[in-house]
């Protein structure tokens, strides 16, 4: 049944390509239906009606297997439907290119949903690949600025990362001795320690490229700056989380191997936070600031993962996985909202250069409020979702600290905390430069009208999600309550 | 009486001359002729082997029959090849191999 969540956008995309109706209407209806259905699953996600398992290939045994593997899948699916809905309704499609625009958005959305709904490793990988080519087309054809270079860079970079990842995944499956590629079977098996180290390295590099882990991060900012708003929203909001989801999902089988790479990973994630943070401070354009900031925030989620690695298992550090999930959700929503609003600014004032903007709040107070909300969310203001995630990440870093000498992960957490100052610096500077101060020529009230009601609905939905999870994170944490499916499977397998 | 080796030697020599011609000569028709020379040397080899490989006191006529096939195929190949060369000449006004490089990468 969960295949419906994927089929709706897929069929709608094909319908648009076949010219069965007005592209924008089909896309909006599909996205709304998906949103309603997706949010509806919250109430009954544990029922097995959502599961589907179809053997597609028998040697190796690959199944088209879908369902909510655990609470983390559910949260990511909710994120995907929310961002897809908003993405369809944001941005301005150039004249005459509706087919390409809307069908690409739907394909990308379907890819993201499929990846998070998959309970088979192969289709998990394949659905993500589905999203690569539409992204390439959208950035390359309908993007702005240096779009061709950005499109080539992101596609080839991510393709290279995917090849490394595929190698790692194939090695993992063959070393595990499992018959099928299903998560259940893989997580129930075990791999020899020597192989684990190599597999872990491939997984970290492969997934790392997809998450823009330092030093594989330089594709992200130019791509998001040139991409049309919906693509930037879905990619930064949803597709980037694919890598972290995969790492956490596959962690139990390679837990020993990952520990060999702990220090290396900690150095890289600190570079994500501090190095890329400083790069962001030096940016002079709003879209580059946001692109780099999305790279920076991935570092925090990695910090939770590093805490998990050091502890050795989900039970040893029960905070790490919920922290990562909440922060993934929060970051996805906030960055999607920010990209949407930046695109609005670009359309209204014709520029995203900070030097050319100023005093926009007078002409567009509602836009200023929403941007302020999203910006404050992304720097971790309490009451908004990102803080809930970040505070859990920091707590997970210190979870196993006993008051004596500081360990690797604790030192990393301390250094990572400077990131909250860095992010406040660039976000407040951007806000100050764009919205406050006296209005300048292209932002005066004669030229700019405020946010209309049609744009307010998607932005409002995202803002409300941020507030709900920020004011009451248990709304999201309740889904993560159940004991680890992997460990319960292992228990059942060993019985 | 010449031994098998002598015939093989001559045949090899003819093949080498043909190969050298294919590699070195610039005129397509000459290259074609050298190609034919190589085919002829192969035929000579076949006949030599058939003559010196005796089955019940008689030569192994399989080899000689095979030569007939080769000659036939060679004739067909020459027909097609010369037709291509004529068409090429009509298109490019040259049959100098060094000037025909439009398949360059």
């Amino acid at each position, binding site marked *: 049944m969960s295949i419906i969540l994927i089929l709706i956008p897929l069929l709608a995309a094909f319908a648009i390509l076949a010219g069965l109706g007005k592209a924008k209407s089909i896309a909006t209806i599909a996205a709304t239906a998906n949103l309603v259905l997706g949010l509806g699953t919250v109430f009954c996600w544990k029922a097995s009606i959502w599961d589907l398992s179809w053997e597609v290939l028998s040697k190796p045994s690959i199944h088209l297997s879908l369902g909510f593997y655990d609470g983390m899948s559910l949260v990511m699916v909710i994120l995907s439907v929310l961002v897809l809905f908003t993405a369809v309704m944001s941005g301005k499609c150039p004249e005459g290119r509706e087919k390409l625009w809307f069908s690409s958005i739907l394909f990308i959305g379907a890819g993201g949903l499929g990846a998070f709904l998959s309970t088979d490793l192969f289709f998990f990988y394949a659905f993500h690949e589905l999203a690569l080519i539409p992204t390439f087309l959208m950035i390359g054809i309908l993007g702005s600025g240096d779009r061709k270079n950005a499109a080539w*860079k992101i596609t*080839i970079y991510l393709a290279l990362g995917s090849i490394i990842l595929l190698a790692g995944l194939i090695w993992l499956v063959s070393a595990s001795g499992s018959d099928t590629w299903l998560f259940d079977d893989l997580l129930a098996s075990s791999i020899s320690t020597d192989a684990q180290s190599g597999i872990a390295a491939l997984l970290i590099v492969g997934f790392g490229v997809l998450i823009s882990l330092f*030093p594989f991060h*330089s*594709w992200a900012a130019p791509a998001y700056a040139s991409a049309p708003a919906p693509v930037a929203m879905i990619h930064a909001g949803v597709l980037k989380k694919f890598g972290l989801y995969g790492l956490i999902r596959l962690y139990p089988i390679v837990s020993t191997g990952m520990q060999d790479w702990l220090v290396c990973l900690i150095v890289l994630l600190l570079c994500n936070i501090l*190095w890329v943070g*400083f*790069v962001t*401070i*030096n940016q002079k354009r709003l879209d580059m600031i946001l692109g780099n900031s999305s790279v920076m925030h991935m570092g925090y989620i990695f910090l939770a993962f590093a805490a998990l690695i050091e502890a050795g298992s989900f*039970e040893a550090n*029960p*905070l790490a996985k*919920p922290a990562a999930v909440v922060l993934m959700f929060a970051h996805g929503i906030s960055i999607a909202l920010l990209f949407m609003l930046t695109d609005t600014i670009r359309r209204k004032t014709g520029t995203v250069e900070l030097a050319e903007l100023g*005093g926009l*709040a007078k002409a567009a107070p509602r836009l200023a409020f929403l941007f302020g909300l999203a910006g*404050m969310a992304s720097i971790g203001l*309490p*009451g908004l979702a990102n*803080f*809930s995630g970040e*505070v859990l990440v920091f*707590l997970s*870093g*210190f*979870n196993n*600290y*006993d*008051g*004596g*000498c*500081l360990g690797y992960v*604790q030192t990393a*957490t301390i250094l990572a*905390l*400077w990131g*909250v*100052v860095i992010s*406040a*610096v660039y976000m*407040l*500077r951007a806000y100050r430069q764009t919205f*406050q*101060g*006296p*209005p300048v020529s292209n932002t005066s009230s004669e030229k700019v009208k405020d946010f209309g009601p049609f744009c307010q609905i998607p932005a409002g939905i995202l803002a409300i999600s941020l507030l709900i999870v920020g004011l*009451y994170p*248990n709304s999201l*944490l309740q889904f*993560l*309550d159940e004991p680890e499916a992997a460990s319960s499977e292992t228990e059942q397998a060993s019985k | 009486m010449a031994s098998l080796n002598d015939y093989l030697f001559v045949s090899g020599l003819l093949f080498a001359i043909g190969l050298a011609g294919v*590699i*070195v000569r610039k005129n397509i028709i000459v290259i074609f002729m050298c190609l034919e020379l190589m085919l002829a040397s192969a035929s000579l080899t076949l006949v030599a082997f058939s003559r010196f490989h005796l089955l019940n006191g008689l030569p192994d006529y399989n080899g000689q029959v095979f030569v007939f096939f080769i000659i036939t195929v060679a004739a067909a190949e020459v027909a097609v090849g010369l037709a291509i060369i004529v068409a090429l000449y009509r298109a490019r006004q040259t049959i100098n*191999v*060094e000037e*025909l*490089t439009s*398949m*360059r*990468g």
Partner: protein
Amino acid sequence: MESLPWLILGLPLLTAAAIHLGLKKKQPLSALVSTCSAAVTLVLTLVIISKGSDLAGSFTWASIPGFDGIEVGYELNRLSRGMMLVVTGVGFLVHVFSLAYMKDDSALARYFCGLSLFMFSMTGIVLATNFIMMFMFWELVGLSSYLLIGHWYQKDSAADASKKAFLTNRIGDFGFMIGILILWGITGSFTFNGISEFFAEGGHPKTVVPSVTMFSVAILLIFMGAMGKSAQAPLHVWLPDAMEGPTPVSALIHAATMVAAGVFMMVRFFSAVGMETLDSIWGPDIIAWIGAITSLLAALMATQQDDIKKILAYSTLSQLGYMVMAVGLLDPEAGMFHLFTHAWFKALLFLGSGAVIFACHHEQNIWKMGGLKKTMPVTFLTFGIGTIALCGVPGTAGFFSKEHILESAAHSGQWFLFGIAALVACLTTFYMFRLFFVAFLGKPRSENAEHAKEVGPLMSAPLIALALMAIFSGYQFLGGEISPLYKPFEFHPDAPAFIASILAVVIGLFLSWKLYGNTENDPLENRGIFNHFRNKFYIDEAYAKLVGYGQDTLAAFIHFFDELIINGFIVDGFSRAAGGFGRLFGRLQSGNLQGYAVLFGIGVLLVIYLTVFVS
């Protein structure tokens, strides 16, 4: 009864939400709604105080199996009840004052929305049961301050000031969070109850904590949060700039409540740990010294400022230094008592200055005022009461609280600190009376001052109420009932503290009268060391350079490096290498027929060799 604290906490938040979502267009209604909500919270607080009960309640905000969970709740004890009175009392009076002061503002609704948001956040800090909850509301208070300082954000100076305030506070929060995490590791809990249980047996910290060094470090890091919020040196630079906000905001946030939150938090924390445990480690000493140094620096800087609000801002910094010093001397009662009395008279002084600014048509330079004694008698009187309370003239509340701190310093044997505190008392009297003489006495020095007239009842009523509190809140009959952490104060006329404070007042008053009693401009202007005071010891400029080089240049360098090495060499390097290989192999496809033939021949030979002669 249990739900009253939730109501006090939630009502301002609902008000803020209602104003933002619905009432933005109806400005006067928003103002009224906000003021009513402040009034209701004040009434509820008085009810709670009169009952005098110690309550606690909470709900789980974040629960994860295997982890204790983060709770949001309230804990009412003497400390929080007294602090709540300060917050709601001063808050309500400021709301009333703002009704008149801000009535011509075009964004009145946004202003009151911000005030309500602030009341919500500050209440959260006061009622917090654990460090994480306190941190959340700590940051929310920072947000409210950002919004209110930047209320007139079309002005560049206001926008910059609000950004500076938020960022400086963030740096403090950085240290705060690390301290909380380390303390969590040491004690296994971040609730105040949990911490006090951990230290309940008392005794030397060595026996209780794994590492005394880490414990001291944790204390100092947590204090870093207080440094940011209460503007202790070197994180004090945001407070004077915060005067860009409307004056009632300065009265509420930057005088009475938000800046006091740091002191409040430290007291809460230290009470949970226990004074005996803290006695034997070196952390609190540093805190006391930071407080003293801030106090002295700020007092020196205040002697040469000309903007009435800036003088009061530096004075606030100085008094906060006193409170922090008291906390560092492990005498929380003294610190909280001074916080309590200071809230009333400092709010009075700020609101009084607001009245003066309003009457003089937004003139803030004291040298352009003068002669206000005749034109604004009520303001003159109340401001005078506030001034003598701040200076610690015997009989006022400020006298008792300052005495308490001086005695604390004397009793602990820290004579250096005592000396600094006494010197600061002298300086306080000096610059406050400088302000008072220049602004209120003499002849009007400008058009605006000539045409000043007394302010209306909405503004004078809060002034009078605060003046009464400034005098009487120090006495046992009042302070004893409502002040947080009150300890009955015994008055010793012959103690060094008493002698020092009387001397300080007398000397300061005398010097001030000599120099400023009757003068048209500042006689100390442009005189050597006084210039340094006027220029605030160039600390702001130093910070600007630090940020410019330490951060922005570093950021530019890292960006350059990122572009050159990672983007240029490695990423583009790969693509250039791939292109190069492609071109290299492309040379094989030369279009040369005979070249192909040669390769073909070589290939055939190779195959023959491999099949016939190998394997």
